[in-house]
């Protein structure tokens, strides 16, 4: 089998690891939590980093009027379907199409990932800003506006007494690596074609 074909084949399969490993992790650190609270985001689930973490995050957040983290969101159905379909397309391309299609698949994946991230951002924004008007504690920014508690999309941010970390996990890296391999496959294919 040609080298670029193998790359595309592997690239198309790698995102399947999202069904095994989490996509993202949000960690909340505070002095009275020597073991930080943490939540893994999978493509089909939220899960505790340590037992009962989500329950305890909800308990903390209810003081400032944040909603409970839902048991399920529509994305948990859409994301897995998206991954399965794009993998299928990727495999078809690997078997049937030439290297130029590898680039198209790569672009498709970039667009879909960006859409996913944007969706994640919207959810986070809503989670951090749609606060119960009867919240026990209300905080305002220096400019007088209502303080939001949106965790960072990527990186680290101080929110009141907590330091929130938000970073991709093995699942996201697998997706990225898969996309990278497809792009590499395209480059290898183009180089061979020029020769």
């Amino acid at each position, binding site marked *: 089998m040609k080298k670029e074909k193998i790359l595309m084949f592997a690239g198309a399969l790698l995102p399947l690891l999202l069904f095994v490993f989490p996509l993202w992790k949000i960690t909340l650190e505070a002095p009275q939590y020597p*073991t930080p609270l943490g939540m893994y985001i999978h493509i089909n689930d939220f899960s505790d980093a340590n*037992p*009962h973490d989500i*329950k*305890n995050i909800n*308990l903390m957040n209810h*003081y400032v009027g944040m909603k409970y983290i839902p048991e399920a969101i529509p994305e948990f159905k859409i994301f897995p379907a998206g991954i399965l379909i794009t993998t299928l397309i990727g495999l078809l391309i690997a078997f049937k199409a030439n290297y130029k299609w590898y680039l198209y698949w790569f672009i498709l994946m970039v667009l879909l990932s960006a859409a996913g991230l944007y969706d994640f951002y919207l959810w986070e924004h809503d989670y951090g800003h749609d606060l119960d008007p009867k919240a*026990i*504690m209300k905080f305002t920014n220096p400019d007088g506006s209502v303080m939001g508690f949106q965790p960072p999309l990527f990186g680290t941010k101080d929110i009141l007494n907590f330091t929130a970390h938000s970073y991709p996990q093995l699942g996201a890296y697998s997706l990225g690596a898969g996309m990278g391999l497809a792009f590499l496959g395209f480059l290898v294919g183009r180089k061979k074609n020029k020769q």
Partner: protein
Amino acid sequence: MKRLNYFMIALITGLFLVTSCNQQGNNSNGALSSSAAEKVYVAPGEHDDYYAFISGGFSGQLSVYGLPSGRLFKVIPVFSQDAEKAWGYNEETKPMLNTSHGFIPWDDSHHPDISQTNGEVDGRYVFINGNNTPRIAKIDLSVFETTEIIEIPNSAGNHSSAFVTENTEYVVAGTRFSVPVPQRDMSIKEYKGNFKGALSFISVDPEDGEMDLSFQVLMPGFDYDLSHPGRGASHGWFFFTTYNTEEASTLMEVNASQNDKDFIAAVNWKKAEEYIAQGKFKTIPANYAHNVYDEETHTATSTMKKEVRVLDPAECPGLVYFLPTPKSPHGCDVDPSGEYIVGNGKLSADLTVHSFTKMIDAIENQKFDGEAYGIPILKFEDVLAGTVNQPGLGPLHTEFDGKGNAYTTFFISSEVVKWKLGTWEVVDRKPTYYSVGHLMIPGGNSRKPFGEYVLAMNKITKDRYLPTGPEVTQSAQLYDISGEKMELLLDFPTVGEPHYAAGIAADLVKPRSKKIFNLTDNKHAYATTSDADVRVERDGKEVHIYMTMIRSHFNPDNIEGIKVGDKVYFHVTNLEQDYDVPHGVSIIGANTSELLIMPGQTETFVWEPKQVGVWPFYCTDFCSALHQEMQGYIRVSPADSNLDLTWSLGED
């Protein structure tokens, strides 16, 4: 005045500098030697190296300290009611203090011992004896709570207890006072020959740790003072010191001190098992409580047991031998190899050490020196390994460092004396302040002591601490024993009277310590594990409130329809599942203690309202930022009111 203060400070600082220089000069172990303060300093946030479980004596409890810092972490309620933790006050734990004499709110806790596997402390359980109303308690070190208490029949002054065998096959409890067996109405003057001393062997289930009184050896009517198990070659034997072999029953201080030698009783419990298997026991009627706390129901049950198997040593050859030991020996201690049995003859100036090998040899060659009540007495000279000559006054207890050294406390001369096993020479002595009783080396009653520290426990402190009126604290003193000479590092006060202690490396216990109880495992009969199940039910004059608590509210928090004369049960479940978030609860006029409920746990208290009104209840443990808001009201109507029960949370 201010100037004078500065002057004093300068003077004291100056003196201190001079003294410290001097001290450094004295203990010149080079630049590496550290001060006592540094050796016991555990920095904020750091953990101690050892747990020390120190008995509370007349407090009836067991306290948990860290070593080397001497910091107190917890007082585990065992035999005495504890209002702080609702022990013996809430409905769940009241059965733990049940006995054949009814509910007993107190005892005198003496000798903790840690469970062992292959002769080494394993950190699963601590056993401790109640001395006054004879009982043995088991503390589970995954929760640091008392989970089982068994009463000992035919026993009185349960003192030569609670020591475990090499694989925790048995926890052993010997009676200090001999009594009529079975108890009956008889003249005290007929003591001699009629009273019996029961040595009880309580088996411990290897899987779930459940205790069961397997059998008792009915010994002559002496006082059985202390005991320790054999180990290594002597595994299978148990050794008990005796006094009052005179069998006196009055003015004991004189009449029980007449014999030149009393005995160490060597009991072959493997032989006892054979006799039991052969059916050579008698089953006699008895009445004793067996109380078990179940971690899933968070509830204790008390069962009365009605009989016990007994062995008569006169009818069981080879079961017991007597080793003559001078002058009312107190502590009975076995070295890590199991070869040496130390009899701490408290009225003798010498320490007597017996040899297990010699004992077996004497038994095999039938070198007996008479008998007492059918039990062969071995010849003193035939079993003697050696004598530590005149090491101090009033030897009480000995522990071992695992490096060939023994450490003995001397009550009268207030000191700890270090001596060498085998050569019997005294190596070092250090004063204690004052009148030391027991001492403890972590792992000291095992094959592998952690020979780094010895803890001496003192009966008297007088001027050692800030005075607190006529009643002053008792204390423990920590010595570094890593070197040739002992070094006093630290004094710290104790809870109650520290009779004995058991120590273990923290790493053997820490990882097993639970953080919460899982709500999903809660099988309490009155648990409310979700807000949907919250309710109040009436059954005649009994009212059951199924209540939950979570930061920072009770559910329900408004209840109406309670009447004067009702018996109101608060069954409260803590829905938290986070580490260290207990909630407490009590209500005005409750004739009992608060509840202190751990995450995932259910507890119950009873309230019998006597006055009409609206009465608040609240969280008693500062749980959260909204702790002060964690409160509720109960409306109490007259006894003849027709108001229906209603309950709510958050309804305006």
